């Protein structure tokens, strides 16, 4: 549908041919000798929003890789005295000079409610240090270090900095948010990979052989798609033994999510197979005596690979939403695992959210990532067929 809105690259070349012949024919030349992937890249580059989204997503995965470095407090360390501290703004300038600092906090008791409240103390300025020492972790799983992007002198950042506040158990939300990127972003990838394998296999078989096999697989897809997914997932997830470890639950969730996720991909693959089977170049290859496997891998797959990549990108946000939803319900990943859904679990009831709205902060990365994946997928889908 958006094809009509963005004229193809070659189209612009033809228009300018009338005004300026030498340059136009050079551009035309460039288009006619370009490989398919080059054409796609040119098409994709025109989709601004998709380009930006691609960068945003890359940034998120970088955060996931360097999560420990970007965190400044141990995400699992609880401390009752630091329960539900409000986010603390960073002040970048001090008396005109660039000296980033935060204000110290004074814990008090509310005289009426006896609730513990924390108030910033403008007198007490705590300077922020870059590449400071903090809790110890394994950098990329390779070697031990205790350097973090930000910290304070003395290495006790968890007692002094609370960029996004703390949760009920006094754990630092910013640090937990960083670490949560890992599970939340990779579980989508793992789920989508599994769906892709299932989808390509079953969709391929369906499109290739046709007939009764095709009908059977199509019926299965129709049935799976008409079942409401969340109740089904909830049922399956609830059946996971309570004593499973984080890794086991992680893989179980992946399997549960891809159980439904493969149907979309299978449809794309099947549709492409059916369309390509009628193409002249496939017939030509058949007449030239090329084996079936070689026709599929050498001639057919390259011409729909781009469609599969686009479909996969569009399937990813659904996986991320589903994981978040399941974990939010307490049926997905469970503490001590940290994911965006697990973090949002704290924000389940309105009383907590009303008093400590910062517990909702995990919603922000969820929304950004889903939006970015959708835009990226749209851009890829438009670019997938550069001749259209």
């Amino acid at each position: 549908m958006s094809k009509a809105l963005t004229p193809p690259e070659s189209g612009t070349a033809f228009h300018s041919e009338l005004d300026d012949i030498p340059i136009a024919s050079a551009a035309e030349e460039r288009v006619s000798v370009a490989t398919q992937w080059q054409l796609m890249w040119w098409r994709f580059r025109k989709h601004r929003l998709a380009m930006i989204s691609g960068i945003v997503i890359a940034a998120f995965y970088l955060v996931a890789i360097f999560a420990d470095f970007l965190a400044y407090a141990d995400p699992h360390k609880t401390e009752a005295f630091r329960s539900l501290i409000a986010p603390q703004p960073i002040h970048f300038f001090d008396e005109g000079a660039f000296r980033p600092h935060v204000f110290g906090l004074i814990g008090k008791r509310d005289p009426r409610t006896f609730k513990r409240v924390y108030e910033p103390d403008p007198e007490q300025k705590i300077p922020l240090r870059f590449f400071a020492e903090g809790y110890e972790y394994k950098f990329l799983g390779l070697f031990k270090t205790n350097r973090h992007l930000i910290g304070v002198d003395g290495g006790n950042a968890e007692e002094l900095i609370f960029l996004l506040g703390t949760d009920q158990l006094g754990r630092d939300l910013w640090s937990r948010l960083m670490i949560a990127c890992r599970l939340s972003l990779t579980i989508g990838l793992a789920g989508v990979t599994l769906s892709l394998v299932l989808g390509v296999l079953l969709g391929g078989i369906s499109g290739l052989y046709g007939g009764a096999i095709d009908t059977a697989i199509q019926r299965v897809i129709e049935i799976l798609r008409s079942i409401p997914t969340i109740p089904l997932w909830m049922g399956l997830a609830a059946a996971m033994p309570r004593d499973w470890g984080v890794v086991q639950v992680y893989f179980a969730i992946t399997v549960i999510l891809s159980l439904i996720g493969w149907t979309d991909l299978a449809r794309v693959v099947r549709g492409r197979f059916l369309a390509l089977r009628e193409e002249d170049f496939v017939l030509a290859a058949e007449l030239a005596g090329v084996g079936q496997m070689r026709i599929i891998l050498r001639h057919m797959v390259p011409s729909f690979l781009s469609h599969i990549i686009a479909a996969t990108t569009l399937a990813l946000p659904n996986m991320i939403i589903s994981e978040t939803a399941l974990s939010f319900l307490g049926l997905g990943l469970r503490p001590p695992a940290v994911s965006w859904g697990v973090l949002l679990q704290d924000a389940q009831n309105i009383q907590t959210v009303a008093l400590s709205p910062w517990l909702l902060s995990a919603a922000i990365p969820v929304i950004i990532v889903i939006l970015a994946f959708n835009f990226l997928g749209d851009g890829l889908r438009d670019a997938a067929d550069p001749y259209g």
Partner: protein
Amino acid sequence: MLVYTIRRFLLALLTIWAISVLAFAIIQLPPGDYVTAYIAQLASSGVDVTPEFAENLRQQYGLDSPIWVQYAKWMGQIARGNFGRSLEWQVPVLDIIGDRLWLTMAVSLSAVLLTWGLALPIGIYSAVRQYSIADYIFTFIGFIGLAVPSFLLALILMYLGFRYFGANIGGLFSPEYQMADWSLGKLWDLIKHLPLPALILGMAGTAQLVRIMRANLLDELRKPYVITARAKGMSEFRLVLKYPVRAALNPFVSTLGYLFPFIISGSIIVALVLGLPTIGPLLLRALVAQDMFLAGTIVLFLGVLTVFGTFISDILLMWIDPRIRFERRE
């Protein structure tokens, strides 16, 4: 047409059968069986349980027979209207589900109606006034609607409602009607509370439908018959509504098949956030407490509800669109 209807109906039956197997699997999946759980419950309340008693119970429930026999027995019971007893509440499952099922349907249906009611005018407007400011605004809201999962939307709206209006905007009834018997007043109260959950649930579907409607209508508006009508001096309003809109209406019905499972799915988790007395929170509770007959029955009911919705949308689609009718006849 009749052949097509029958084929659809058979497929719907097949789907319901598949769902019943899945629901049964959900009942069977957790370690241990109904009797283990029941005895554990008896033991915790101080009743002494002998192994013979447990064995008797197992025989009584047919838990010692092979799994497919158990499935057949379960289905047989359901055919007779007996859905089993809830372990946690110690009453027949149907008594617990009762009202909640109707409320779930009310919420889901109003979400579908709201989706249609919003998507139609917005889609037409966005296509007729393409690239206008309103078109951009609707596109932007649409993207947000697509990207924000409904339960997050519910959480954020709850927070905003609490923050700026100081009111809890959840629930389906005002406090004075919560326990009351059904009356006109209670019904009116329900209708007043429905728009918010319906809006939250319908947001993503509306966004998608607007995009489809806009694209379809744009294609349609470029066709020669529209130009002919305009050249002959037909008023713009009639021109758009009389033919192009009707031709572009298809997705409204054809997406209903997917919209319905999607909305029912979403309603489970949104109901939890908003504290709606629908089937969603009950399902979660049943699953967590491993109250498996209750959970299985709910999954079965939701599945049947969805299949029914999909079936109706298929038949509707065939009825409004002759192209599909004739294609099937060949």
